[in-house]
């Protein structure tokens, strides 16, 4: 895949180029408004629906009671208020942040590596975070307070190692060697993680739970923990969306346009890694979001990163909020692992988009 991607990338760009470089304002705003509307509808449904039925009027009352300076008083019972404000809302916000981050990270990685199979876990962030989380669970005492920090540090270190090894391979085959380094680093760290997990079978369920990913115990403190990283990361990725378009045409061409390719790549990879590591540190390893949201956006809204990056953020948030809604309601009051939902809903939906767009436009996923 890594070998063919750059070769493929050159031709379809030409197909889409006139649209991409057109007077972009309307083309950017329409998909953003559509995605945002979908996200708002899904969020509203999510806050009103759950294993426990709370009437929409009481949900609204609870939300208004938490608007600062409004001093709204609600007659909603305390337990229902807690359900809406302490359990559902942080779940929705956290799923939104994580979904936005994974989708934008995936889009950025696909652009930087010009590889349609790139996802935010490509450079070993998931394996590193998994190892960090396992170390904390096995050696870190009882309460898992430091689990997010260990996962975050593990994920970041893994990507740093991949990057340094990949860059040491020389400038020419940069993309390929860093992706291969990522595969090797991920394999090594996953092996160590599996070894630790097998050695301490009593903790295996805790580790397994984290690896599957879940928002079942999300709280506002999780939101505030990752918010700074997600905001900074998202801002950096948004600021570089035009550069990702330029990098698509190739490094030398980018150079002639006055773009320092190596520096741009480093900044984008660092930002995507930081945000992804923060996201998975609280959510666990949720798959599929990073790879399919960006492609769905690309196939439906346009091939320019000026569209893909912001729309993927919104669509990723909507997708994960919706997936979590299904995870907590389909077998209520039991929970279904969210990774199962993202794969079961996401994969067929993505295949549907892929086939229908291909038929309509004659363009495929390879057009990164």
């Amino acid at each position: 895949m890594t070998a063919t991607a750059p070769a493929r990338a050159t031709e379809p760009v030409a197909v889409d180029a006139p649209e991409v470089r057109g007077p972009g304002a309307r083309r950017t705003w329409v998909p953003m408004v559509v995605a945002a509307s979908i996200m708002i509808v899904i969020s509203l449904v999510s806050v009103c629906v759950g294993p426990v039925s709370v009437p929409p009027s009481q949900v609204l009352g609870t939300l208004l009671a938490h608007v600062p300076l409004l001093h709204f008083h609600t007659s909603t019972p305390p337990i229902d208020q807690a359900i809406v404000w302490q359990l559902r809302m942080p779940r929705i916000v956290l799923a939104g942040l994580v979904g936005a981050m994974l989708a934008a990270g995936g889009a950025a990685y696909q652009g930087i590596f010009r590889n349609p199979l790139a996802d935010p876990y490509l450079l070993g962030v998931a394996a590193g975070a998994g190892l960090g989380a396992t170390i904390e669970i096995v050696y870190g005492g009882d309460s898992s307070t430091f689990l997010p920090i260990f996962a975050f540090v593990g994920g970041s270190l893994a990507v740093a190692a991949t990057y340094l090894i990949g860059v040491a391979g020389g400038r020419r085959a940069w993309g390929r060697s860093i992706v291969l380094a990522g595969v090797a680093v991920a394999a090594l760290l996953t092996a160590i993680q599996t070894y630790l997990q097998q050695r301490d079978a009593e903790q295996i369920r805790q580790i397994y739970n984290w690896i599957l990913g879940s928002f079942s115990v999300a709280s506002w403190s999780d939101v505030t923990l990752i918010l700074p990283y997600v905001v900074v990361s998202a801002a950096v990725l948004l600021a570089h969306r035009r550069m990702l378009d330029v990098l698509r045409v190739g490094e030398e061409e980018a150079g002639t346009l006055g773009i320092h390719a190596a520096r741009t790549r480093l900044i984008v990879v660092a930002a995507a890694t930081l945000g992804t590591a923060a996201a998975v540190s609280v959510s666990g390893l949720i798959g599929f979001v990073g790879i399919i949201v960006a492609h769905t956006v690309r196939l439906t809204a346009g091939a320019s990163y000026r569209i893909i990056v912001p729309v993927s953020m919104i669509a990723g948030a909507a997708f994960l909020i919706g997936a979590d809604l299904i995870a907590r309601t389909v077998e209520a009051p039991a929970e279904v692992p969210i990774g199962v939902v993202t794969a079961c809903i996401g994969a067929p939906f993505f295949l549907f988009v892929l086939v229908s767009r291909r038929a309509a436009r004659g363009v495929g996923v390879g057009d990164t």
Partner: protein
Amino acid sequence: MPLVTALAAAAAVLFPGAAASAASGTAFPVKVRAANGSVSIPARPTAIVSLSPTATEMLYAIGAGSQVKAVDEYSDYPPSAPHTNLDGDDPNVEAIASYKPDLVVLSDEAPGVDSQLGELGIPVLSDPAAANLAQEYAQFMELGEATGHEAQASAEVAKIKGQISAIVKSVHKSAKPLTYYYELDQTYYSATSSTFIGQVLGLLGLRSIADAAKGAAASGGYPQLSGEFILKSDPRYIFLADTICCGQSPATVAARPGWSDLTAVKDGRVLKLNDDIASRWGPRIVILLSEVAAELQQHPAS
């Protein structure tokens, strides 16, 4: 007070004294029915390897402790058992064989392990997790037959039955079952009333809120519950079986967002259980039951 007697009796279970040393005169060879079929044991075993923490507790309870040569890494009770680093979940046949056992007891049917040990001529008993107390008693009897302690095994079973019925009698049962939330870990994995632990607690007139998870029975009775469902159910009691693994306590539970509104939290009806005892189906289940019974008496739910 019947509860005190029950506790005292429970303690006696764990330390079988001089009475237990009398051999019960089983004639070997014997054929024993275990979960892995009919197993024939040629002579009274004197080098037992137990790879199941529950079986280890049972063997010691029926006076077969002196015949145990090695136990797995998680067999932490009784403390005097010969601990090794043998892994009961993923048993290594060579490592087991190196102890030259004449009987191996497992809890999981690790595929291939019993046939491999069989080829080495080592009899293997598989005693998987009991689904109910009757199965626990059957495993006691089976281990008694296999080790030459039949009489002690049936005495042990009779003793446990007696203690349980004494504990059950000591508890005032309300007309409506009292609800509880049983916590296996801090991501709200729980147990339904149809599980082993659920049936034991059911003897005291308790009913798990996890029963509402319909699909749970099919998946073994251990669903992961929604936080909002637990809050809305407002269970009368909360039993924490994640105190050792995950450091949970009434204080950590009260600190969870929204949980301070639960009546069980407000009225102090959150009980710490020993995870190890709660996850086994051995002789110490009596201790767990008496602790829960004591909680019901000390903190009655209106």
